[in-house]
């Protein structure tokens, strides 16, 4: 019942789509008022707000994690360092000013697939992946990832072998998790940049698997 009600109850719903115009208008007005007050009070500097937004829109993002993954695929000693201390290893790539402590990199293998969630809020390794996607912050993902991860993977079109162990990491503290996906087949000839292009954000959260070029 939990999974098949979408159509049948369509007409029974009160609509609370967070993106509906009313919610947007109300939130927009509220945030504008907050900004006005905080700037007038001198607690925040408007030019600094612009810089912060710029940072998240243009500086940090999944390309950081992807670069680290690709390097680990081609450089076994980097991979060992990454698994030993994710923050320190990625720091050496000089991609962002500094990676936060306790970034834990977990490696997918044919025996074990890793997935990351934060059931209590939406903790996310933003220093290596940028801001989390909406689905990561959704109640659907936060609630189901730990009890029905294969169902969640189905929502992403991912079907793992029945024998693969699924390990879900709930980010309940200030440790952060990055999945090191398996290098796809048919990538022997690819260089590091081409490999990095195969590494999607979702594959570093554990809801996707990188796909190589067709043979």
């Amino acid at each position, binding site marked *: 019942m939990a999974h098949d009600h979408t159509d049948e109850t369509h007409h029974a719903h009160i609509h609370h789509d967070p993106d509906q115009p009313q919610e*947007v208008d109300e939130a927009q007005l509220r945030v504008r008022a907050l900004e006005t007050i905080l700037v007038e009070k001198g607690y925040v500097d408007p030019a600094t707000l612009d810089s912060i937004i710029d940072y998240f829109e243009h500086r940090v993002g999944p390309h950081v994690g992807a670069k680290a993954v690709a390097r680990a695929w081609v450089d076994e000693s980097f991979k060992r360092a990454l698994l030993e201390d994710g923050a320190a290893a990625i720091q050496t790539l000089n991609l962002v000013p500094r990676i936060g402590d306790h970034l834990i990199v977990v490696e997918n293998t044919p025996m074990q697939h890793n997935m990351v969630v934060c059931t209590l809020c939406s903790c996310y390794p933003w220093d290596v992946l940028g801001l989390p996607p*909406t689905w990561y912050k959704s109640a659907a993902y936060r609630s189901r990832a730990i009890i029905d991860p294969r169902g969640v993977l189905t929502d992403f079109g991912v079907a793992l072998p029945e024998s693969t162990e699924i390990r879900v990491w709930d980010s309940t503290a200030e440790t952060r998790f990055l999945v090191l996906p398996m290098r796809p087949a048919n990538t022997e000839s690819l260089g590091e940049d081409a490999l990095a292009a195969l590494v999607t954000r979702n594959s570093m959260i554990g809801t996707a698997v990188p796909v190589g070029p067709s043979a």
Partner: protein
Amino acid sequence: MNGVHDMGGMQGFGTVCPEENEPVFHHVWEGRMLALQRAMGFTGAWNIDASRAAQEQLPPADYLAASYYKRWALGMTFNLLRSGLVDPIEIEAGHAISPPAKVARVMRGTDVLRAFTRGKFSRDTGTKPSFCVGDTVRARRMNPDTHTRLPRYARGCVGQIEAVRGCHVLPDTNSLGTGENPQWLYTVVFSGQALWGQSADPTLKVSIEAFEPYLESA
């Protein structure tokens, strides 16, 4: 606090809907809200645990109905009022009326890059951890009505210590402003069946990051 934010294991929220080529922000105000949160965090007026706690105390129907950044706005409003940095009448009016309170520091353009290092929460306490890797532990049944990071689904369940992560600031006290109270932090792994019963997926394992006061020997 046992709130709707603690949603691990709940059913009925429907399917997960990934969005192709999702933008960083869907609306301009979302970016402004994120930036306000970062800038206010820099002032030291409240810590990140108090930020989370503020969102958790929203009325449950509001929490679920609000979008992610709207929850941030509501939580920040709560903390601005609670800390006395802003008066209720100013929130109503949408502009400053009374003189500002004092904050420890204000973020300037030059601080931005530095401020984007995620905070360091480990602390050197000189204590020794009570558990070692491989130990069997039970997550305590505890139900504080204030902020905690032990999710309900794990309480009373038996798992194994998989890693010792060092001593970290305890959110339970830090959120209340009663001290960092650093505690040993462990990765504790549970079988799906320990959490969800015999009909659970036998290939499932779930770990939480658990502070020592959340655990007891089993």
